[in-house]
């Protein structure tokens, strides 16, 4: 995987595209991939609302300026929502 696809390109801090936001939300546990375009918009809005709630931002469900500036912030690579099946970070016992 191309690592930079998971994070916002710091050389273009002011441009955050919807696909980048979706990748960010998927990367950190807020959005599952879906092939159903109908429910895509609803899932995206729900994922944004969960992200905003989890990070103490105003909950709008929209990619507003608060949310975008947070998405641009450097951060820990561990997901915020950890499903028990998240393998990489639960890579087995010692």
């Amino acid at each position: 995987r191309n690592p930079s696809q998971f994070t916002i390109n710091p050389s273009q801090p002011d441009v955050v595209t919807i696909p980048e936001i979706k990748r960010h939300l998927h990367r950190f546990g807020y959005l599952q991939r879906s092939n159903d375009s109908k429910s895509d918009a609803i899932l995206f809005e729900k994922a944004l609302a969960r992200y905003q709630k989890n990070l103490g931002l105003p909950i709008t469900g929209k990619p507003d300026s608060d949310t975008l500036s947070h998405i641009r912030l450097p951060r820990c690579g561990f997901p915020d929502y950890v499903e028990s099946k998240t393998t990489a970070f639960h890579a087995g016992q010692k």
Partner: protein
Amino acid sequence: YVYFPGKPRWTRDSPLKLTYAFSQENLTPYLTPAQIRRVFRRAFGKWASVIPVSFVETEDYVFADIKIGFFAGDHGDGEPFDGVLGVLAHTFSPENGRLHLDNAETWAVDFDEQKSSVAVDLESVAVHEIGHVLGLAHSSVKDAAMYPTLKPRSKKVDLNIDDVVGVQSLYGTNPNFTLSALLASETSTNLAD
């Protein structure tokens, strides 16, 4: 505070002693090994002051409980780093013990010396990642050490009451811990900010 699914934590005889070591081949060019060791000793000390757990540095990386290294890009654990800013570091949940930092960052211990606009405070990230090593996931409390984001050229090295209650619910309380000492340190940090 939030646990990982299944509430994993280190389960050994009490008092719990965890060893940590640095991958000598994978450090950062921005700091000397002595600076890195001093920062992590302080960071481990923050957590040790609130729970009955001690952290001892060892040279033996292979057998250390906690393995610390600075890596670039794809480094073989399925979570490639992404260059400057973006993801700064990641850690695995207990009892895995691996703590990885992105070698592409401009790691700093003193912003008066390191003037880069993308400089990242190593101690703040170390305190956060050690929280993961112990079993805490990301918190939604903005002042908590376990809050997932960190601005460049900013510091967040003290534990918040949210971090303390979370980690003490996993390991118990250090008999020498006093809430007033914690609140005093939070107040002094807020005044400094």
